[in-house]
């Protein structure tokens, strides 16, 4: 698989690797994917409840190079954005930025899902009503 330079760069120097305190009410955690599918992403964001600005983001990913790059890029993008701005990030933006080949598009979908799941978790913690919490929207496959 020939990857773009950007994927290789993110793979070699992933941004914002790590974990935030998941019990912190201002931290939203999204865990998406499944080990038997070969990719699992954990994305965490610390959001200022007053400004709704994402102040910190961390990730850990089990998956191929483009899954790692997609989640690394996602953390870079969401930092400094408001919750609403972050929710507007589309997987196609990630595909374009990383020049992902068609077989790797699901990695970008997973990254978008991870953003939505993490912010859904944050909203739940904040007492905001989530119409469809991402964590329970699909059964394990």
């Amino acid at each position, binding site marked *: *698989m020939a990857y773009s330079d950007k994927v290789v760069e993110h*793979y070699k120097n992933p941004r914002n690797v790590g974990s935030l305190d998941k019990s912190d009410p201002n931290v939203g955690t999204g865990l998406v*994917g*499944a080990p*038997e599918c*070969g990719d699992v*992403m954990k994305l965490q964001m610390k959001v200022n409840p007053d400004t709704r600005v994402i102040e910190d983001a961390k990730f850990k990913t*089990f998956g*191929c190079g483009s899954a790692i790059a997609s989640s690394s890029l996602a953390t870079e993008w969401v930092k400094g954005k408001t919750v609403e701005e972050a929710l507007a990030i589309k997987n196609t933006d990630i595909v374009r930025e990383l020049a992902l080949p068609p077989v790797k598009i699901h990695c970008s979908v997973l990254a978008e899902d991870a953003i939505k799941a993490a912010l859904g978790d944050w909203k739940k913690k904040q007492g905001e009503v989530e119409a469809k919490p991402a964590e329970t929207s699909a059964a*394990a496959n």
Partner: protein
Amino acid sequence: MAPKLPIYMDNHATTPVDPRVVEAMKPYFTEKFGNAASRNHEFGWVAEEGVENARAQVARLINATPKEIVFTSGATESTNLAIKGVAEMYREKGNHIITQVTEHKATLDTCKRLEKYGYEVTYLPVEKDGRINLDDLRRAITPKTILISIMYANNEIGVVQPIAEIGKIAKEKGIFFHVDGVQAIGKIPVDVQKDGIDLMSISAHKIYGPKGVGALYVRRKNPRVQLAAIIDGGGHERGMRSGTLNVPGIVGLGKACELCQQEMAAESERLRGLRERLRESIMSRLDETFINGSMEHRLPHSLNISFAYVEGESLLMGINDVAVSSGSACTSATLEPSYVLKALGVGEDLAHTSIRFGLGRFNTQEEVDYVADRVVETVSRLRELSPLYEMAKEGVDISKMKWVAASDTH
């Protein structure tokens, strides 16, 4: 001393041609270019002599007679010829074939095609160690069974099947026994008499010979095996395989077999030592690593390890100056993890994390040490990145988690 990069350690896929093989082949491209089927001039005779010498070299390596060797374009063709050739020739006798689930696709897809034409195929399961159960085989045999096709050693995990025992059962029941010998020949002793083999597929490029040439061993007595040809034409190879012989390739295959015969004992001991060095070096420094397949019944140069919590393709990316291969779905065209590992009962999560190391004639100890270091370093780095490793360390049972599928299906 730092080894020269990149390092090739994927010798189950193919091997470099031994320089001595290249030397043997060279004259057959230029001054000895004749058609081995030309019976009335010197050019033809010289080419034929090269072919017949190669036939004897191949036969000697597996304890056959030269007349039992049919040259082909490679082992895929040999396997097609063996299975389809027997199926057609012995249709009156029966229509049942027995094989097993971890065979190479050349065998599995040939059998699948025959199923479309009304043949019945039993695909035996394998045990956890990758070997078939002989009682399963005995139970699968029916009065309609005409062929058993089982590989000598597996291409992904290097596990060696109980070939002599299978050969004995086949002989008792009067059923022909075809063996895909590709990974085993030249690496461990293979003897068609002792092993009771009636047909065997052979490839040159797995034994330091050229690509595009192979052979099929076809037993001529006790019992004599007859084959319906799948390629018709000028009646070459006693009618079993028409088409002008690839003389330089055949000469190369012969020379490769001769070298294997001379060097196998020493080479396999050396490679076993290197393989064990690689295994110990990696597994002593990393936790949660698992060997796939039997260690006891395994080719000496073969190693297949799953590195839990690290996806195989990302591992390959991290060791990109080392050529190995992975059972991960991401590295396959079908996006399915290895069917071989699945058949062993390896969970899909661990199949995604598997790496196959194939040592070969030209690998050195320095290379093994370098590869082990790179693997340990990369796995450690990727585990720092892995949410699964973190959860496992926190004591979360990942197999009991409820996972949220991605929005698309794959």
